[in-house]
Structure formats: structure tokens, C-alpha cells
């Protein structure tokens, strides 16, 4: 495999927390798929009932996944005018992850010879950061 491109992004954990508090249903519809949320401490539909360590961990993980999606978008070089939902990028895993693409993004990746998106992330109480590499089969 060769590396074609790299992307990085950082997201405020408290910003993600506020977004989840205010727009949970919309976020579940358009931003995070079931694949994104499979490694959360509890089902995202229960977010409103989370407290303490579970709440903090959920916000950190989702901030990291959001950063991973944005980093992947940078790798793909998706023009700002492109219409897609963040749900079209599924981040599987957390600190080591892969990004799976749904159409139309999967076609875009193929057109750029990107066969795989992999990355790594980290989060603390304040920020989550993710780096993504686009790889090509040699």
C-alpha cells in the first residue's frame, strides 16, 4: 500500500457535548451511523440519561469520530460544494480506526485511487484529534 494523502482535524469535546444535548435526533439521522456508535459505552438514544464518566466518554468518542470524518474529508479532497451527509463516512474503531465510505463518497475515493482510509485518534477532556491516511493498493 502507498500513502496518497493525509488529513487531520481537531474538535472541541464540549462543543460536541452541546451539539448532542441540543440536536440528538438530527445527529443520529445525519452525522453518526450505527457503525460509528457501536463502540459507545451505551446506545446513543440513551444520551439524555448519561452522567459522569459515561457521559464524558461518550462525548470524547463522538468528538474523536467527528474529527476522523473531517480528516477523511480532507484526505478525499471533497469540494465544499459537494452534497453529502457525514453519515456517509463510517468510523469503525476509536483510537485506531478505519473509515468506510458510502456512495457518493466511495465513488469519489475510487476516482482518486484511494482504496483504504485508516487513522488514529486521541482525546482528552477538552479536545479530540484524529489523523487519517488515504492508501492505494500498489
Amino acid at each position, binding site marked *: 500500500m502507498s500513502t496518497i494523502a493525509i488529513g487531520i482535524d481537531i474538535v472541541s469535546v464540549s*462543543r460536541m457535548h452541546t451539539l448532542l444535548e441540543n*440536536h440528538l435526533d438530527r*445527529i443520529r439521522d445525519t*452525522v453518526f451511523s450505527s457503525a460509528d456508535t457501536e463502540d459507545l459505552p451505551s446506545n446513543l438514544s440513551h444520551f439524555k440519561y448519561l452522567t459522569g464518566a459515561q457521559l464524558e466518554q461518550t462525548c470524547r468518542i463522538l468528538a474523536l469520530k467527528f474529527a476522523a470524518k473531517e480528516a477523511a474529508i480532507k484526505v478525499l479532497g471533497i469540494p*465544499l*460544494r459537494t*452534497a453529502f451527509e457525514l453519515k456517509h463516512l463510517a468510523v469503525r474503531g476509536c483510537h485506531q480506526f478505519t473509515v468506510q465510505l458510502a456512495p457518493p463518497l466511495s465513488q469519489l475515493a475510487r476516482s482518486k485511487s484511494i482504496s483504504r482510509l485508516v487513522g488514529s485518534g486521541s482525546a482528552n477532556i477538552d479536545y479530540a484529534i484524529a489523523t487519517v491516511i488515504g492508501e492505494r493498493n500498489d
Partner: protein
Amino acid sequence: MTENLSPEKILAVIVSIIGEALMVDPQSISGKTRLFADLESESIDIVDIRFRIELAFGFKIDQTDLMSRFGSQAGNSEVIEGFTVDYLVEYVANRLK
């Protein structure tokens, strides 16, 4: 929110939404303000603003529809320059017709 809102009222609501989402003084936001270039909006900010607009005006924003004015060949610099508060007002006004 229902139809028949004037552009001025739509502008006032959107300015309020952007001010709250980005924690900036609404008085510093005008129709010509560019969300990316002037307010340095990040992706998570745009998501928040989008959802707040959907809630305020009672419709789901279609991304294809929202970006349609820019055309299929528009570069990022064109979007950064053109994605203004007035652009959002026009989009909302058209959706409310």
C-alpha cells in the same frame, strides 16, 4: 415558524442563530458576513447552525439543494466567498414559499 416571513425577519432569526452557535455578538453579523471567511466557522459549527435553522423554520435542509447555487464546477474559494448570511436567508425564503 410559518411561511410569509419577510427577508428581514428571516435575517434576524438567522443572525440570532449564528450568534448563539458561534458565541459572537449578533450586532457584528450582517447579510454580507461570510460564514467561513469572516466568522471562521468550523465544520461542527456549520452542523450546529444547520440544525438550529431546521428547528427554527420547521424544515429539513437538503444539502444538494443548499449548495445548488454554486454549481457543479465551483471551487472551494468560490464557496468560501459566497456562503454568506444572505445566502442562507435566500435559501430559507425560497424554502418557505
